């Protein structure tokens, strides 16, 4: 099988799994709340319904409002082509490394924030302001955690980081790795809008960050943005899973290896989703001005990760 088919295949797998991941987390949370809840495939039904709905656009909005969902969706899908979801080495590994992934996601956030400002609604402005604040404060942590990972390998290339852990399994428990995992986990909570940073199912506008920016969207645009948010969650989880515990990732591109890789990916996603569900059930949302405390804690963890990698090389 040609390695160049791998990239679109990864994109397709990611697109198919992402809503299921969100649905699975919702299902687990429902069960933890002692109720039946919607089935894990509910987000697929919601997406199908949204694509069939009418689109209402504000009279104050410009072309940017209609273009932004495509840019957000496009950047999220492009990222899935660059991360080691199924196999290493990646055919597009020479085009983008971990830094490109982080900044492509920031591109999506940038346009979503602009789209929040466009209709002139105060909720959108508030969401944009808060989202950019959280994103800006999460950047140094992400960069340092990336460098902690890259330090051992000597490169920020994703395929190489994953391969290194595959070839020397004891690396996975190196203090630098573990600390970097903790740091990136906290950043995941911030970037994907989960508790304690942002409540994905809140209705109170003053408590919203991500949701506030999309209050004006309807129909297919909303579907694209929800799908992109699910993809972002999947990307962060697969980074956590496949960079720190890459077993299952295919090193040869055969149908059997790829199938096994998809299965292990799904298992890792479910495991991380379960952790998130437990975390969200146990803690309350942090006040916005206490989120920097959380992000500083993750920055310290990332700093320790870099120091540990450096000291124990």
């Amino acid at each position, binding site marked *: 099988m040609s390695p160049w088919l791998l990239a679109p295949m990864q994109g397709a797998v990611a697109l198919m799994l992402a809503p299921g991941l969100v649905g699975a987390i919702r299902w687990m949370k*429902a*069960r*933890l*709340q*002692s*109720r*039946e*809840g*919607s089935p894990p495939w*509910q987000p697929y*039904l*919601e997406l*199908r*319904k949204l694509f*069939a*709905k*009418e*689109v*209402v656009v504000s009279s104050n909005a410009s072309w940017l409002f209609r273009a932004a969902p495509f840019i957000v969706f496009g950047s999220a899908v492009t990222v899935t082509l660059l991360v080691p979801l199924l196999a290493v080495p990646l055919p597009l590994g020479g085009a983008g490394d971990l830094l490109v992934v982080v900044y492509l996601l920031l591109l999506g956030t940038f346009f979503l924030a602009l789209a929040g400002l466009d209709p002139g609604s105060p909720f959108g402005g508030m969401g944009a302001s808060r989202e950019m604040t959280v994103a800006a404060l999460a950047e140094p942590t992400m960069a340092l955690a990336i460098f902690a990972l890259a330090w051992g390998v000597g490169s920020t290339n994703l395929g190489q980081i994953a391969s290194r852990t595959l070839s020397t399994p004891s690396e996975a428990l190196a203090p630098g790795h573990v600390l970097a995992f903790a740091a990136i986990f906290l950043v995941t909570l911030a970037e994907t809008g989960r508790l304690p940073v942002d409540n994905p*199912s*809140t*209705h109170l*506008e003053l408590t*919203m960050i991500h*949701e506030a920016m999309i*209050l*004006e*969207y*309807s*129909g297919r645009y*909303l579907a694209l943005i929800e799908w992109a948010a699910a993809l972002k969650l999947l990307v962060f989880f697969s980074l956590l899973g496949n960079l720190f515990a890459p077993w299952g990732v295919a090193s040869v591109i055969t149908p059997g290896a790829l199938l096994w890789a998809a299965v292990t990916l799904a298992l890792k996603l479910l495991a991380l989703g379960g952790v998130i569900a437990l975390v969200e*059930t*146990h803690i309350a949302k942090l006040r916005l001005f206490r989120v920097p405390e959380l992000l500083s804690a993750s920055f310290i963890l990332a700093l320790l990760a870099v120091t540990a990698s450096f000291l124990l090389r």
Partner: protein
Amino acid sequence: MGLLSKILHTGIVTEPLPAGDSEVVHLVREVDAEARRLFGRALGIREVDAGSCNGCEVEITGLMSPVYDSERFGFHFVASPRHADLLLVTGPVTRNMEVPLRKTYEATPAPKLVVAVGDCARSCGVFAGSYAVVGSVDRVVPVDVFVDGCPPEPAHILQGILTALRSGRP
């Protein structure tokens, strides 16, 4: 781990929904087949309080509780009418809420349904004749289903929404 053991001890408490009661739930207009097909399994609900005393709101909050669990039918409450498919309206429509209710309806993308909850929504209930109310919700926005009660039980509200979705068919 006190919380976790409590969760495991409690288990799933969702009760099965009893059959519909036509005394309480009234289908006013037939919902077209396309909307029914579209919303059958995934429905976004926006709750609009058009001047109610909040008794109905307390019951609607019960809809999201583990006992009644509206989510198992695919319903979820949304933060903006742009995300909504169904408006759940309560209260006699007061003069001040007439325009906001209409604006909420206009902000909702088609196809859309309206379920009016409570005696006030149908006939202004105890506020009938007051200078501050406009009248039944049907006078402001086209209603598909009325659910009687002051306040109606969460089970009846669920039945009302399901009736709107199935248009009276089981």
